[in-house]
């Protein structure tokens, strides 16, 4: 899903200039919502997503996929901080690992960080509203939202291709191939996300942003004393 240099070119759609708006939006969004104790969790989440993105799993003959991590990050640390965490992953990959073109960094941030952590998180919230208010409901919502995120990202890629793609192939064929394969990749994304969220809930439910409405008031007695 990392777009290399030269796939899509066009004024104002690509490049460093395109990184600034989404990056500053997620940074200022994060700045207004962050809690001090989330700082280490954001670092852990970003580094986990980086490692998970190295683990390509086979999805069809001669094709692989890997976790994008936007929904996972958003469920763990919140949508804005999650978008920031995945953006950092993409920046590190582009600068150090030659993965994802530098001129396409803005597109990649949109497709993987913003679509996953913001739109995907929106789906997660919708699912949470209709599913039972339990930890199982959180895990299921995260898994389904994560399964849809790569499909959404592939649709957004098709829009970008339509706007500035350098290929000669019609949009219909690109869309059919891209969306088709990302439906399969989405299954892996959903399973990995559900497993990871489930594992964190089992050990430290208080650290899962998307489940904090279910948290027992673990700090209440001491906190009240401190506040007084």
């Amino acid at each position, binding site marked *: 899903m990392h777009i290399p240099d030269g796939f899509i070119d066009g004024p104002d759609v690509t490049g460093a200039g395109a990184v600034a708006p989404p990056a500053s939006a997620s940074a200022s969004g994060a700045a207004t919502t962050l809690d001090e104790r989330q700082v280490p969790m954001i670092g852990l989440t970003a580094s986990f997503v980086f490692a998970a993105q190295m683990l390509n799993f086979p999805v069809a003959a001669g094709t692989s996929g890997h976790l994008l991590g936007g929904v996972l990050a958003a469920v763990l640390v919140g949508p804005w901080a999650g978008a920031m965490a995945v953006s950092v992953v993409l920046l590190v990959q582009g600068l150090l690992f030659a993965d994802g073109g530098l001129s396409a960094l803005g597109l990649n941030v949109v497709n993987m960080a913003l679509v996953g952590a913001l739109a995907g998180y929106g789906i997660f919230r919708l699912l949470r509203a209709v599913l039972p208010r339990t930890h199982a409901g959180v895990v299921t919502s995260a898994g389904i939202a994560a399964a849809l995120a790569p499909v959404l990202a592939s649709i957004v890629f098709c829009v970008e*291709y339509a706007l500035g793609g350098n290929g000669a192939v019609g949009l219909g064929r690109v869309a059919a191939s891209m969306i088709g394969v990302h439906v399969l990749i989405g299954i892996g994304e959903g399973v990995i996300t559900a497993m990871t969220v489930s594992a964190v809930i089992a050990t430290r439910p208080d650290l899962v942003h998307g489940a904090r409405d279910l948290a027992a008031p673990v700090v209440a007695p001491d906190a009240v004393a401190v506040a007084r």
Partner: protein
Amino acid sequence: MNPEFSTAAATVTVRRRHGGWFVAGVAAIVTVMVFVVAPRASSAPDGLEKVAADTGIDRGERAHALGDGPLADYAVSGIDDTTWSTGLAGAAGVVVTMAAATGLAWVAVRRRRSPSSVTDAARPA
């Protein structure tokens, strides 16, 4: 709830819930991911690469500007053993990502906690 109160409560929580064990657990899992699983991961093209190769939408592709870097393509240049090359590149990426994300989040929190000193310039007159 006043912000000072919630921050104090949060700090108490982290200390009392033994955050160190959680961090150690994540570190162990990530270590296994990069040194054990990543070298054995599928090397088939990913969804976009496969579609690009099949349809020719990659005809304008340019070489990556930093494609000769020491960690390019998740391999440490000069280390021929795939397992070590991939594992060490992954470990480097994990450490850099951790540092960058933690640093950025820390800056974001500091900005929020001292809004008057940082956002004056951004405020409408």
